[in-house]
């Protein structure tokens, strides 16, 4: 494992400097070290402790509390299948079972890199990821892959392993897990304008409102123009 370079150490200090009290930077700092080393290493724990002037035990306590911090490596693409009740019922259990079988892995394990594979894939079951209207949902490097099926999920992981470009159903082209971790540390990657404003389910109610001409009540006259209320409409 490479040692943390000066750039990373400087960025760790930069993160700590965003907050009135530097310890607040610890969560994004741990995201940053993961982006560099692929997991939270003992060395990274020491580095964070030194920047924040706290003990390595305190950093360790935090690193072991949150599920996004990994003490073992994950794949270039980390696939999370939602198996909380609603997604499980809608097919998440079947998707997770099929992917485990297909990749020949258990929960939170990295599939073997085959001859000719460009990338590695790891698999984990995740809890509700706030996309229930797109159930069953799979996350890849924390991007939404909505309305999945077992067959579709197998095709997707094969595309990822063989190096094809895969795009989130409601977001940008997928970046690697390490690149994603860097964004979480607060260093944007320029992909913000990719993908739509909203997926189809997000727009379900709005489309009905548009069709039927339903709006929120109009703002009282002589007020500043409404923020997001309709431009036109009858006063109630």
């Amino acid at each position: 494992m490479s040692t943390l370079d000066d750039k990373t150490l400087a960025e760790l200090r930069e993160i700590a400097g965003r907050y009135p009290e530097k310890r607040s930077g610890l969560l994004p700092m741990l995201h940053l070290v993961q982006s560099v080393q692929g997991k939270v290493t003992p060395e990274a724990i020491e580095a964070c402790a030194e920047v924040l002037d706290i003990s390595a035990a305190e950093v360790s306590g935090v690193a072991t509390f949150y599920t996004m911090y990994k003490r073992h490596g994950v794949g270039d693409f980390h696939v999370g299948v939602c198996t909380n009740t609603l997604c499980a019922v809608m097919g998440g259990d079947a998707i997770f079972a099929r992917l485990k079988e297909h990749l020949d892995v258990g929960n939170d394990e990295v599939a073997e890199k085959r001859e000719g594979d460009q990338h590695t894939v790891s698999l984990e079951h995740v809890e509700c990821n706030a996309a229930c209207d797109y159930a069953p949902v799979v996350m890849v490097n924390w991007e939404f892959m909505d309305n999945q099926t077992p067959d579709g999920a197998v095709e997707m992981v094969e595309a990822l392993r063989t190096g094809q470009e895969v795009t989130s159903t409601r977001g940008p082209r997928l970046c690697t897990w390490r690149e994603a971790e860097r964004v979480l540390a607060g260093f944007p990657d320029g992909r913000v304008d990719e993908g739509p404003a909203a997926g189809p389910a997000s727009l379900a109610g709005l489309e009905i409102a548009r069709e039927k001409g339903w709006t929120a009540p109009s703002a009282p006259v002589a007020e500043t123009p409404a923020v997001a209320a309709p431009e036109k409409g009858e006063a109630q």
Partner: protein
Amino acid sequence: MTDATLTPVLTDMWDVDRSWTLPAYEAKGGYQALDKAFGMSQDDVINAVKDAGLRGRGGAGFPTGMKWSFIPQDNPRPKYLVVNADESEPGTCKDIPLMMGNPHVLVEGVIISSYAIRANKAFIYIRGEVLHVIRRVQAAVAEAYAAGHLGTNIHGSGYDLDVVVHAGAGAYICGEETALLEGLEGRRGQPRLRPPFPAVAGLYASPTVINNVESIASVPSIVANGAAWFASMGTEKSKGYGIFSLSGHVKKPGQYEAPLGITLRQLLDLAGGVREGHDLKFWTPGGSSTPLLTAEHLDVPLDFEAVGAAGSMLGTRALQIFDDTVCVVRAVLRWTEFYKHESCGKCTPCREGTWWLVQTLARLEKGQGSEADLDLLLDQCDNILGRSFCALGDGATSPISSSIQYFRDEYLAHLTHGGCPFDSARSTAWAGQEVTA
């Protein structure tokens, strides 16, 4: 309400081209409420939010303006605003699309709310597992700085505000406000004992307001259109609009923004009804921590009072719909495993209790155990409910006690059947189409 209509306010931007950008938001009148707020005294802004009757949209329903007024302004320490964007309650999926499609309404809400409580530093704590949403909010904050909506002397008002976008790292418990503060202070996300409440001693032991994304995002519309406008929607004690999230066995799952008080029957009518050929069996009004309801509750007005009177809670308006193919025992066991996994471990009744609930339920689901185990489960619930620092353990008991109340026979059927009598393949989104599993 006789006729159900939808009232898009926060969702109104979502079908606009590049809706997440500053030009798109400003073209819809964005950041004009900010000037209006700066023309008012801070207390007048607080009073407007109070008069509007806005109640917390994160589940608890506490009056937002009142929360703001609890900040002791004579306390010399800095004041902080913290936005709870850790949306994780199973079934809840409104704040995530809101921040993806309209992040600037949140940013404008943050500025107005911070101004009202006299905070010069605000934090948006977003769960880490939603990368693209974090990108959109990061970019909106950067755009707002560049346009002079954030930083020093905003709009020439003399008011300064800095906003930090903070990514969490995977912990349901951080949706609990004091656990969130611990996470934001760089610690394990374990709830604090209250009092003192965050309004008195929150972030860095300073006066802190913590509000849900949708609550804060509602503030610009209240300031722009007036408290009376907001209060003209909704019911007597549950005013305004809210985003209702329909998921599961419904023809058109998705987000429906409507006045509080709309019923599930009305929402299902708009959403095309329950999946073809099936009937509604059970549903959650506000996520898995709110007791289950059934078809007999279709006409309960979805506001804080009526759902409470029906024995549940409005919560986050996360309407998870389950049809007659779903085994309630399987559903409840899965939620219980979730609570066991997410219990932070601080309080014994929750840490140990959720473990025992899983043991007991798992046995029942396999058709083992006996009818006495139902009483055992209820007794375990009784030993968890109200006995810990936060409401996670309380939430864990909700699906169990309500499912035993409405579906006792189904638990017993597992015993007589020697296992689950349901075929889980019939519940999937692709059931009846092709066999893929």
